[in-house]
């Protein structure tokens, strides 16, 4: 079949045209496709869940890192502030050990965390939403690194400021002490120096530049008075001037350092202002991602379950449909054929099956129909033959019956006279003897012999003799009673069996017969007579004995002159 024909017939038509093997193959292929579909759905669900889990883990790690970095940054800031506040009281080294070094370590940890966070963010498993926030991420990382860098830089500045051996404060104190020593000889200058030192100490407390400016102003006055102070000699004045310059230089440096440190605080504030919202957003975004991933996993689970259930239901529906289709196109046809075959076996030759072309069953159906047609044809021919043969047989049977009947007649009839023959007479004698014995009703027999019949034959020939015998038979048959049996006993002897007849009645019958014979003129032979012997049956008699007695009586009739009747 060409594809265009398939298309024009539609799926059902195409299905019908497919062979059983192809139908089964197609059915199993469809089921296999469903199994594959379910497997693929399960695989896809697993892949999605795996991806979502990775994203969730990544988001949780990112959130954890952001939390950690926030915490570490805050910790570093607190260490730094504690260092700043505590070193004047507990000493630089102890403050550095307690707060400074942990601040360094924490700042380094922030940098390390920022690298880890960067690696996480650039990882392949990070969610698209978080990846889209790369600007925030980059900002957060930049600020974290900057925080650490500035913190470390400030720690160095603080060290340069407060280090007990060579820090700016110490050096200023030393310079002040040297100045006090150098100016010790001048009360006026010492007072000025003390005034400047008071401003410097105030600055130390307030960190307000005007305080230090006031100290500078006093030192400027001191410097102005120094050359003219009589209490100091020239070398001492020169030394004091150099010490003043050094002190002012140190103070300038201190002021600059403090300004940098102060700007750092502002920097930290600005950083916090910039980073805290980003940090919060990142935490919220990563939390949202975790939640989203959880939701997605749940959704995927539900979707996969639904898909599997749907595919299973669809598969079941397909299986039912396939079973229905197979049943409709194969099983039902086979069952129908089986039933039809049984009916055929039972003799219903009018059976046909649906034989839709296309598949093997169609061909089988067509073959079955052809076969039943053939059987029908054969059976019809056989019946005709049987009928014909039966008719022929019936005819033969009828012919045979006729023949048999003829034969039976022939076997009990004398062929010349048509009377009973000797065999039939014997049968009649026996039958009457049994009946006489059973019912105790005697019967009689009459033995008849044509007188001088030999002379007739001799004189006129055997044909005339036969004619005489035939005429005599007619006389006997005409005059004998219906119940009597008349037969030719042999030659020219005849025997009449008279049932339930006594010897007297039998003698009368014999008398009528004799008279009729005597009165009859036989052709050619003329007048003839006959002698009669009558005998009646007796108890315990037998045919031979009875006939013997009749014959004996006949003999006596012969003896006594013929044409007469003798009774035994």
């Amino acid at each position, binding site marked *: 079949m060409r594809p265009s024909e398939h298309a024009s017939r539609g799926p059902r038509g195409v299905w019908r045209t497919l062979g059983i093997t192809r139908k089964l193959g197609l059915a199993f292929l469809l089921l296999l496709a469903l199994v594959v579909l379910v497997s693929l759905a399960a695989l896809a669900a697993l892949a999605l869940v795996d991806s979502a889990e990775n994203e969730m883990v990544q988001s949780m790690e990112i959130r954890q890192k952001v939390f950690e970095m926030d915490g570490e940054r805050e910790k570093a800031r607190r260490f730094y502030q504690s260092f700043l506040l505590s070193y004047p009281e507990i000493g630089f080294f102890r403050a550095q050990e307690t707060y400074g070094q942990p601040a360094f370590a924490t700042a380094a940890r922030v940098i390390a965390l920022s690298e880890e966070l960067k690696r996480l963010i650039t990882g392949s498993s990070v969610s698209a939403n978080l990846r889209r926030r790369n600007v925030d991420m*980059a900002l957060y990382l930049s600020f974290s690194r900057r925080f650490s860098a500035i913190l470390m830089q400030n720690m160095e500045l603080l060290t340069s400021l407060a280090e007990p051996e060579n820090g700016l404060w110490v050096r200023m104190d030393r310079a002040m002490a040297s100045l006090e020593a150098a100016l010790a000889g001048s009360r006026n200058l010492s007072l000025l120096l003390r005034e400047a030192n008071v401003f410097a100490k105030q600055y130390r407390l307030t960190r307000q530049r*005007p305080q230090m*400016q006031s100290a500078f*102003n006093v030192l400027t006055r001191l410097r102005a008075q120094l050359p003219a102070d009589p209490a100091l000699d020239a070398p001492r004045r020169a030394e004091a001037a150099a010490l003043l310059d050094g002190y002012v230089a140190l103070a300038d440096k201190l002021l600059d350092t403090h300004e940098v440190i102060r700007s*750092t605080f502002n*920097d930290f504030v600005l950083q916090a202002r910039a980073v805290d919202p980003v940090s919060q957003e990142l935490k919220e975004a990563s939390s949202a991602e975790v939640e989203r991933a959880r939701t997605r996993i749940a959704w995927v689970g539900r979707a996969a379950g639904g898909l599997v259930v749907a595919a299973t239901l669809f598969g079941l529906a397909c299986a039912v449909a396939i079973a229905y289709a197979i049943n409709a196109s194969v099983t039902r046809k086979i069952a129908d054929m089986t039933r039809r075959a049984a009916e055929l076996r039972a003799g219903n030759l009018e059976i046909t099956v649906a034989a839709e072309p296309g598949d093997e069953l169609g061909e089988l159906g067509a073959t079955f129909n052809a076969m039943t047609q053939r059987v029908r044809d054969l059976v019809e021919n056989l019946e005709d033959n049987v009928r014909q043969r039966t008719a022929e047989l019936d005819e033969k049977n009828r012919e045979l019956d006729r023949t048999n009947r003829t034969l039976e007649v022939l076997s009990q009839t004398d062929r010349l006279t048509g009377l009973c023959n000797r065999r039939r007479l014997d049968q009649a004698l026996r039958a009457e003897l049994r009946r006489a014995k059973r019912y105790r009703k005697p019967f009689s027999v009459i033995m008849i012999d044509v007188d001088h019949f030999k002379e007739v034959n001799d004189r006129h020939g055997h044909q005339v003799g036969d004619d005489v015998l035939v005429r005599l038979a007619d006389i006997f048959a005409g005059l004998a009673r219906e119940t009597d049996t008349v037969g030719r006993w042999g030659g020219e002897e005849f025997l009449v069996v008279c049932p339930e007849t006594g010897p007297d009645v039998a003698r009368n019958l014999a008398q009528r017969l004799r008279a009729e014979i005597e009165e009859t003129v036989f052709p050619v032979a003329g007048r003839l007579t006959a002698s009669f012997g009558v005998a009646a049956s007796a108890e315990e008699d037998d045919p031979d004995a009875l006939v013997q007695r009749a014959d004996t009586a006949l003999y006596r009739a012969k003896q006594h002159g013929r044409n007469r009747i003798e009774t035994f």
Partner: protein
Amino acid sequence: MRNRKRTIKTLAALLVAGGLAFACSSDAPPPCADPLGCVELARGAPVRLGVIQALSGKVAVLGREQVRGLELALARQDGRIAGRETVLAVEDTGCRPEGGANAALKIVSDPSVAAIFGTTCSGDAATAAQVMTEAGLSMISGNNSAPFLTSIGGVRAPKWQPGFLRTAPNEEHAGPAAARYAYDTLGMRTAATIGDGDIYTRGLTDGFRQEFERLGGKVVLYATVNKDDTDMAPVLDAVAASRAQMLFFPLFQPEANHVLLQARRAPGLQDLVLMSDGALIEQSFIDAVGHAATGMFFVGPTPPPTSPAVERLEAEYRARYGESPPTSYHLSAFDAAGILLAAIAKTAQTLPDGSLRIGRQALRDALYATKNHAGVTGSLSCDGFGDCAAPRFDVLRLDDPALGVAGLKANAVSSYAP
């Protein structure tokens, strides 16, 4: 055997040629070859410009002027660059170095930012430019004038950063202009300076001192105040003690206000000649200090002469913002924006897939290659240090605060061009 080898070679050549033809026919854009990388903008994505200005505090008016100059320049081209809409990512520096660094960090975190327009204060510019340079971007300012940012004496300045350009004149010559006027015209021979530690004021005070002392004068006090200081008495005491004839204090508001007002009340400073810088040539300063500023001198860039271009821009300014420009820095901002927009338009490449690519080094090169840009302040050409404006400074004197900044700008008592 020879034939078989020849066949294999021919097939291999065909395969290679086919592969090349396939590769060439692909729509995938070629990789970015710019040494500093490229800004890649997807089809339809806007061009993002970072704007870092001082938008809070007393100097906010200057920062707003810069933003408005940029907006006016963008408006001239319907807000589009290279056919794309433009989005401004604006950050405030607070006119502090740390503010500049933090603002720049925020801007450069976004890889889609093509360039930065900023800053207002030179101290911010120094820190912001460092971040900008490390990120491979370019930055142009219409307000930064500190010599430390570009060049001093014809050599690279300490805070120079590649990719930083400006249309505000290098104030390397502002200090000398003030010194010349003070020495030659006012006859000053001793002077005190007050800076705030910022590179902007330091550049001015250094330039003033060098020129003043070169002329024969003496800077008897070189003082510093901190930003946010309010008590200026000690430093004014120092000024008084120094017996300086004049005080050059190129500070920003509000420190400059405190200096001026307290100087006017300080004993022994009644005759002190006061001179400041262009940062104070604006109405808010005059409003804040009033008559205390009478007789005070200001050194600042010479505003462009009135021209149809300037008048048109100022008309657009008034139409857009409903007020007259408080300073003339919107002009240099407009020109800075014009140079930047032209360079981006020149550099931007539209790729076959519709995306826009801007090479960062190419943009820098285009900015540095700016020659004879027809700006409202004149013809601008950028040198290798990033200076695009010809230095020319005026010394102004405030005679009548009631006339406002316009009266001040109209009262140029001296002009100096190196």
